[in-house]
């Protein structure tokens, strides 16, 4: 594509794409794993370069302050997950759950997924974004089903069907947005460009925008995992390989959320259209409370954290739904913190499940005794995700709650109740997992602690001290979000 600016953006997209092609050809998992890590690292560097040299946006590619946050986060977690995946996959190969052929496929798909997500984030074109998200969905479907067990295929199938319907609805919404745009901006490519749409949206037909938003919210909301559209999420998390669970929770949900946010910005700029906020806030709140209750009823450890992702997506969507600089800031921060923490949790959980040979909570206990590093890592992660001070998520939850107070004091009540319900469940489970008399396998572990430590350190640091530059950046983005 000649219209691509030839710099960081190109690299961010080209590296994963090229590596994917390469990995599909290369045999030997060791080399592929190394290459995978290397490529993820290079992509991360390219993404970081966007912070410094911000390219101009073209007809297909848009780089603004909002999506840089997402891109950097995306590639950071993508990189650490690739590190984790290297040690995880080695173990899977030993136990024979995966074959080298699978692995070749797996690594290639991993890079395709990274490419798709980066593309979705950087796309300036709502159609292109839709295509990228569909690609990401297809890739993850394949990855979720990679174990070929009955349960894995069921989960993948469920994910596939629900995801496809979601995607279809999103497409309809996209078409509607375009149709709303044509009378104002004219036919052709312009009607699908963010940069154009945002500027002119106030003149669009509000009724059309309303319908469009309903479809987009439901469509991309399915991918975000908002209740009641969430059904695929826990299964997909539980049955896929753990690195994929981490990527799903930490990244793909964000990408879908990013899409919702973009359209929310559109709608918010048109004053005659219905306000998207209340709708999002309601769905967010519903997801939070629903997932909070469901957390009590999960006995599969990965499934439980899948529900926890729904819960946190609920909080984030609620925050963005509330709107206003403070709530948006809180939502952004919460999203970042959640990505970091949740992927760290999945890293530990992946190792734990490998050691214990099971994912059932009931058959795991006393982790802090048998595997202190993993056990305490899990405890720290859960404590963080549950929103205890002084970790980062507490900060953002505090901001969400207090900004809710500022605007809708009554909504804070169910919000806090939901937080408390989820908190009780998470802590209940982690008490069972990490403490008490040891249960389950006690074998030694070849874990990669580095990604876990890196994520948790970041979360802890964010809880204690947020660099002013980051705060300023987020505040700026929050204002962009309106």
């Amino acid at each position, binding site marked *: 594509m000649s219209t691509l600016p030839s710099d960081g953006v190109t690299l961010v997209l080209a590296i994963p794409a090229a590596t994917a092609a390469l990995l599909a050809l290369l045999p030997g998992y060791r080399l592929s794993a190394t290459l995978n890590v290397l490529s993820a690292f290079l992509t991360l560097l390219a993404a970081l370069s966007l912070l410094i040299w911000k390219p101009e946006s073209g007809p297909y590619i848009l780089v603004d302050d909002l999506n840089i946050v997402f891109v950097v986060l995306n590639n950071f977690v993508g990189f650490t997950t690739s590190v984790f995946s290297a040690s995880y996959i080695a173990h899977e190969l030993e136990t024979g759950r995966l074959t080298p052929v699978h692995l070749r496929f797996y690594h290639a798909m991993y890079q395709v997924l990274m490419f798709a997500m980066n593309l979705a984030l950087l796309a300036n*074109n709502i*159609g*292109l974004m*839709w*295509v990228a998200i*569909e*690609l990401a969905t*297809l890739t993850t*479907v394949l990855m979720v089903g990679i174990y070929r067990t*009955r*349960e894995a*295929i*069921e989960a993948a*199938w*469920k994910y*596939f*069907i629900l995801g*496809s*319907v979601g*995607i*279809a*609805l999103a*497409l*309809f919404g996209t*078409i*509607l947005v*375009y*149709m*709303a745009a*044509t*009378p104002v901006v004219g*036919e*052709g*490519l312009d*009607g*699908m460009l963010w940069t154009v749409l945002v500027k002119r949206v106030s003149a669009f*037909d509000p*009724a*059309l925008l309303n*319908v469009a938003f309903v479809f987009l919210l439901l469509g991309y909301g399915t991918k975000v995992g908002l209740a009641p559209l969430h059904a695929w999420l826990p*299964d997909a998390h539980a049955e896929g390989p753990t690195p994929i669970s981490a990527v799903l929770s930490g990244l793909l949900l964000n990408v879908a959320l990013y899409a919702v946010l973009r359209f929310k910005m559109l709608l918010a700029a048109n004053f005659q259209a219905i306000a998207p906020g209340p709708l999002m806030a309601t769905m967010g709140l519903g997801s939070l409370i629903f997932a909070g209750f469901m957390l009590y*009823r*999960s*006995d*599969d450890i990965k499934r439980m954290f899948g529900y926890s992702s729904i819960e946190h997506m609920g909080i984030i969507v609620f925050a963005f739904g509330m709107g206003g600089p403070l709530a948006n800031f809180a939502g952004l921060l919460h999203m970042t913190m959640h990505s970091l923490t949740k992927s760290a949790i999945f890293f530990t959980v992946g190792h734990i499940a490998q050691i214990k040979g099971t994912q059932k909570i009931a058959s795991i206990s006393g982790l802090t005794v048998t595997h202190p590093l993993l056990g305490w890592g899990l405890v720290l992660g859960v404590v963080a995700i549950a929103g205890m001070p002084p970790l980062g998520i507490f900060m953002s939850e505090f901001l969400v709650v207090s900004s809710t107070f500022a605007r809708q004091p009554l909504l804070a009540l169910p919000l806090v109740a939901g937080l408390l319900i989820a908190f009780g469940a998470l802590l209940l489970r982690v008490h069972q997992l990490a403490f008490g008399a040891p249960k389950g396998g006690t074998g030694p572990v070849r874990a990669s602690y580095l990604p876990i430590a890196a994520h948790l350190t970041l979360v802890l640091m964010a809880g204690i001290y947020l660099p002013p530059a980051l705060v300023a950046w987020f505040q700026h983005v929050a204002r962009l979000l309106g």
Partner: protein
Amino acid sequence: MGHLEFDVAHLFAGGLVLVSFMLLYQDRLYALLNVFALQAVVLALSVAWQAYVHDAPHLYVTAAIALIFKAIVIPVALHRIIARLGIHREVENVVSIGPTMLAGMGLVALSMVVMLRVTTDAYPLAREDLAFALSVVLLGLLMMVTRNNAVSQIVGFMSLENGLILAATGAKGMPIVVEISVAFSVLIAFIVIGTLLFRIRERFDTVDVEALDRFQGERR
């Protein structure tokens, strides 16, 4: 755009909705597939008409995809699946035909009401066309929801997707419609291959979705 062109486009769109109702009405799988092929043909005609009217040659590609892929390849493939599975007898409806049709009427009415709020000056064809497209989408979804059988669910999904293509082509001058239709074809191919794969691997004895997702969750 003259009166005639408008009327023809309208006719095709309306025909699509009508075929959707026919789909809902079917209770045999082979007949279902035939009707679906008919829908694909109508869609192809409609798209081709748009291409002709708007002078947008790339839309012919979309029309061709619709015609070849959806009207011929997929129905044939599904035919073979049905034959191999031996499930050609009946569509297992969860909700019987009568209430389904009534619900379908309701959905069409709903999409009309929703779309009539759109201001008319937006685009001459937009309002009615969109209303029809929305109806087709909703009817497709309704079909997915009211059928137990995987094949009929796939058909429902494809009919939903036909509605999308209708909307996309109806939107004058919309870019990357072709790409989108290709992407969707890939999606559908995946679904079809998926059902085939399940059968070949003999993981599941039936393609009843009910049996597929006897879920592994944990009851206590």
